[in-house]
């Protein structure tokens, strides 16, 4: 007989998740109703900075259907302070962040008081009856004014708006030389602004706290049920084993649900106070005001090079807006970027300095890419400037500087070991897909003819650090937790398999991809695998989903758990087949005696034998289960080349993306359909930063982009068709050879688009257009330059 291997890994399996999502049989947190459940409304500050002189909740309490109402002052002694898990320096200024403001509000939208009522409408009606008196204080909103002498202070008791300054210097670290001594035949100095963005996941956040009899069950639209459980225990004094956190169906996150939120703690306090389940579901306006924002940095970049285009050094000075307080991982976001400004290039000298700065704005924290899009933007923009300065094609200047395939593993000037990559292969493929030479010829013709619609080509050759993260590195960077991930595999008596994962998917399709991995590892059918996640009672160990870590860390834990199960099953199969385990090979979904492939036992056969347990070999326990925890030794490094061709109408400033090419190398691929979807969505968010989105405050600190009317998420009519392809250089750091894909598109796309716009407008003397490159800004850039 011939044994054939049909691999699930690598197949474009349709998703298991879809069945409920396309029929409305979903379990969003806001869909859940419990007996006796009450509803919460939260009154928010209309001021960016003000002293609270009085709060009167009595008028709310007298309204019908109201069960409780309280303010920050009422819970000041018990509410504690929300956590920052990443105090990046020893001397970081880390002010308290009470869930409910007590005597001062520090941003527009900060929670001030709450109402608990029988239904949501009654809660909102009563909330409007609460009387709060404010005494407005001077506010500071922008980074440079906030660090200027005499600025209003967000936390006057701290005496400064500077939370921390974090420095990396390759000379001091021993990973390179001194930037001050770098050969500087050419010096490029630029200032770039990473505008403030709002993650804008489609499902507004929602939380239900059921206080039970002191054993709390909490449903939350979160990316991090496991981390949340730990913090609930630490912050509320409730024993951890009396807390169960469930992340049911979660409608997107993009880092925006990687947070321990005031609302989660407020709902907890309310439920504990009234002894009944309490639900809070935010409106979109609440999301925009109070869920954390992203980016908001000013980058001063100094690149030195020789005339032949060889980069000799890079110095980056960064101001990063923390908002009014420190978020869960907010201070660490720009630090993740610190390791990526050197990107795929091999220059010898690098210095990075970042100050985290307080302003009277909503906190910032992780948003798709978290530090790496900003870094990639700066270096890829400045490489284009270098190309112009030394008179080389921007592709050529990159080629002269990037790490060659044969140079891997390569220790970067920032001290990370890149395991693998092939930048030539990805770039060559992208150039061919775009038709680069023909596009350049057309560009030249349009310039020649003075066409009012100019053509520009933008290049972005990126890498990123994924698979967050090696616990030892996180510890060295002062992150409070580790970066491991966990999985458990249980083979049921009838051969079906339950998988428990510590990852917490919210759109990434883990139920599907994890089933594919298990199918191959255990020789079971794809549909015979059930993936359980997002409930700390079934999945007690996990560090959840963010930072393109789920497959590169959680997927490896799953493989290891499967292999432990297989090793157990092998002993049982050998016993049944009356041979030595060493005589068996696992192929075609079964253990087979070498040379006698018809003598075979499947994992399901072993599972039933283990269940019956009538005749197990000595020392074999009657379960076919295994757990594994994987802690990566290094990051993974996806890379790729994105090319964007834009047409810019020089008379109106309108930008049209004519062609977008994404060639990504994410290593081995478990499900190419899911990978392509991740690339599409990431590129869409990257384009959105380049062209569409910006969170805007007015001078008094009122958020002007408080809804989808003003914060302009791109619609289907705004986005181009994306042509995506891959090269495949397997990661050498894990047994699947996978690298991660969740953030790649968002990292690569923004500089590709802006480089294209600037490239189109070079003949007009344009060297930069601030993001988002709206028609008005493009038009002004042209006008301002001429």
């Amino acid at each position, binding site marked *: 007989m011939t044994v054939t291997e049909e691999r699930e890994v690598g197949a474009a399996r*349709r*998703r298991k*998740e*879809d*069945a*409920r*999502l*396309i*029929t*409305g*049989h*979903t379990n*969003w947190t*806001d*869909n859940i109703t419990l007996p006796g459940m009450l509803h919460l409304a939260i009154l928010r500050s209309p001021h960016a900075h003000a002293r609270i002189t009085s709060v009167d909740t009595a008028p709310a309490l007298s*309204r*019908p259907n109201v069960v409780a109402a309280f303010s920050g002052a009422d819970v000041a002694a018990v509410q504690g302070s929300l956590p920052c898990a990443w105090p990046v320096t020893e001397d970081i200024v880390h002010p308290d962040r009470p869930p409910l403001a007590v005597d001062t509000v520090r941003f527009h939208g900060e929670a001030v008081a709450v109402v608990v009522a*029988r*239904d*949501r*409408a*009654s809660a909102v*009606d009563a909330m409007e009856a609460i009387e709060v008196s404010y005494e407005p204080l001077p506010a500071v909103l922008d980074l440079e004014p906030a660090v200027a002498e005499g600025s209003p202070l967000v936390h006057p008791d701290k005496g400064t708006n500077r939370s921390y300054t974090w420095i990396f210097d390759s000379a001091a670290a021993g990973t390179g030389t001194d930037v001050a001594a770098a050969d500087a035949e050419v010096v490029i100095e630029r200032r770039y602004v990473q505008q403030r963005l709002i993650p*804008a*996941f*489609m*499902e*507004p956040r929602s939380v239900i706290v059921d206080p039970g009899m002191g054993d709390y069950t909490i449903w939350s639209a979160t990316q991090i049920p496991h981390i949340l459980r730990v913090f609930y225990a630490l912050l509320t004094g409730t024993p951890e084993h009396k807390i169960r956190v469930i992340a049911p*169906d*979660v*409608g*997107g996150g*993009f880092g925006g649900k990687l947070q321990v939120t005031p609302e989660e703690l407020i709902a907890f306090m309310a439920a504990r106070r009234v002894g009944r389940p309490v639900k809070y579901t935010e*409106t*979109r*306006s609440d999301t925009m005001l109070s869920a954390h924002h992203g980016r908001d940095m000013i980058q001063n970049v100094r690149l030195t090079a020789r005339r032949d285009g060889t980069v000799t050094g890079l110095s980056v000075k960064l101001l990063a807006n923390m908002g009014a307080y420190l978020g869960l991982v907010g201070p660490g976001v720009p630090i993740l970027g610190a390791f990526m400004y050197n990107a795929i290039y091999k220059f010898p000298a690098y210095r990075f300095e970042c100050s985290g700065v307080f302003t009277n704005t909503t906190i910032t924290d992780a948003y798709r890419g978290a530090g790496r899009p900003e870094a990639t933007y700066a270096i890829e923009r400045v490489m284009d400037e270098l190309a112009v300065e030394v008179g080389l094609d921007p592709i050529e200047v990159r080629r002269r500087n990037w790490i060659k395939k044969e140079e891997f593993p390569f220790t970067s000037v920032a001290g990370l070991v890149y395991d693998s990559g092939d930048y030539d292969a990805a770039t060559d493929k992208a150039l061919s897909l775009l038709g680069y030479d023909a596009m350049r010829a057309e560009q030249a013709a349009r310039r020649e003819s003075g066409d009012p619609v100019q053509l520009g080509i933008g290049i972005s050759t990126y890498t990123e650090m994924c698979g967050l993260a090696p616990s030892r590195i996180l510890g060295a960077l002062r992150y409070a937790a580790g970066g491991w991930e966990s999985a458990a595999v249980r083979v049921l008596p009838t051969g079906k398999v339950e998988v428990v994962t510590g990852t917490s998917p*919210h*759109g*990434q*399709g883990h139920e599907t991809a994890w089933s594919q991995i298990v199918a191959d590892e255990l020789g079971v059918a794809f549909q015979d695998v059930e993936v359980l996640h997002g409930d700390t009672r079934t999945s007690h160990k996990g560090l959840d989903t963010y930072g393109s870590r789920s497959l590169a860390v959680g997927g490896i834990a799953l493989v290891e758990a499967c292999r432990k199960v297989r090793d157990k099953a092998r002993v049982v199969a050998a016993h049944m087949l009356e041979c030595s385990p060493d005589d068996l090979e696992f192929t075609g979904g079964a253990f087979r005696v070498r040379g006698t492939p018809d003598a075979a036992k499947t994992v399901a056969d072993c599972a039933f034998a283990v269940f019956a347990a009538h005749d197990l070999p000595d020392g074999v326990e009657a379960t076919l289960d295994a757990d594994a925890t994987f802690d990566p030794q290094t990051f993974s490094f996806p890379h790729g080349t994105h090319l964007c061709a834009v047409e810019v109408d020089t008379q109106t400033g309108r930008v049209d993306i004519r062609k977008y090419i994404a060639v990504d190398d994410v290593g081995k691929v478990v499900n190419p*359909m*899911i990978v*392509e*979807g991740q690339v*599409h*969505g990431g*590129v*869409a*968010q990257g384009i959105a930063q380049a062209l569409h989105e910006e969170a805007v405050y007015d001078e008094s600190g009122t958020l002007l982009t408080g*809804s*989808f*009317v003003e914060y302009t*998420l791109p*619609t*289907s*009519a*705004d*986005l181009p*068709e*994306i042509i995506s392809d891959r090269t495949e250089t397997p990661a050498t750091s894990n047994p699947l050879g996978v690298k991660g894909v969740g953030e790649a598109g968002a990292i690569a796309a923004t500089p590709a688009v802006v480089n294209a716009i600037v490239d189109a407008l070079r003949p007009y003397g344009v060297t930069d257009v601030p993001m988002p490159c709206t028609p008005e800004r493009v038009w002004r850039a042209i006008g301002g330059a001429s």
Partner: protein
Amino acid sequence: MSSGNAVPSQPTSMSTTSGSTGSSGSSSARLSVTVDGIRYADVVEARTLLVQYLRDTIGKVGTVVGCDTSNCGSCTVLLGTADEPGRSVKSCSVLALQADGANVTTVEGLAGPDGSLHAVQRAFHELHGLQCGFCTPGMIMSAVDLLRDNPDPTDDEVRDALSGNLCRCTGYQNIVRAVRAAAAELRAQVTVSGEDAEPAPRQPVEVAP
């Protein structure tokens, strides 16, 4: 029209009842509406939005709310009459009482009585037209409406028609593919059966209030 907010042209009947059930003292009225083939009779506050009625009163939580400004389209349903299958509306922009006497189809009522998926649902699955799935109910309902108007839309026509439905995960590309694939399948069904493939509205089943 698919991304618009059409409401049925026939007048709605609002019979105000005595004794408000609401907390704000706003008036309440009787509502009789058929949702996914089931007839419901309720008394609702005048200010209740159709989406609130669907989710909070009759438990049709497959339809979701993603914003409060009618931008996201996550709450899109079909609003029609017993004889007419209905047009897409954003159910956050319709008062529940405006649906009095109407026939509402949500994503939960789109599959056939035997559970067989609608061509648009199948295509979203086959072509990976969803990731987190939160926008999906509204996206699917808008697409169904589009394909009634335009059985063979171009990419640009799909993009234009769905521009009232926001998605943050997919970049829309696979949604466009899915809608066009569903269009092709529906056209093939029409060719085979020689008549309109849209099933007639099912007879309502009476449910006591």
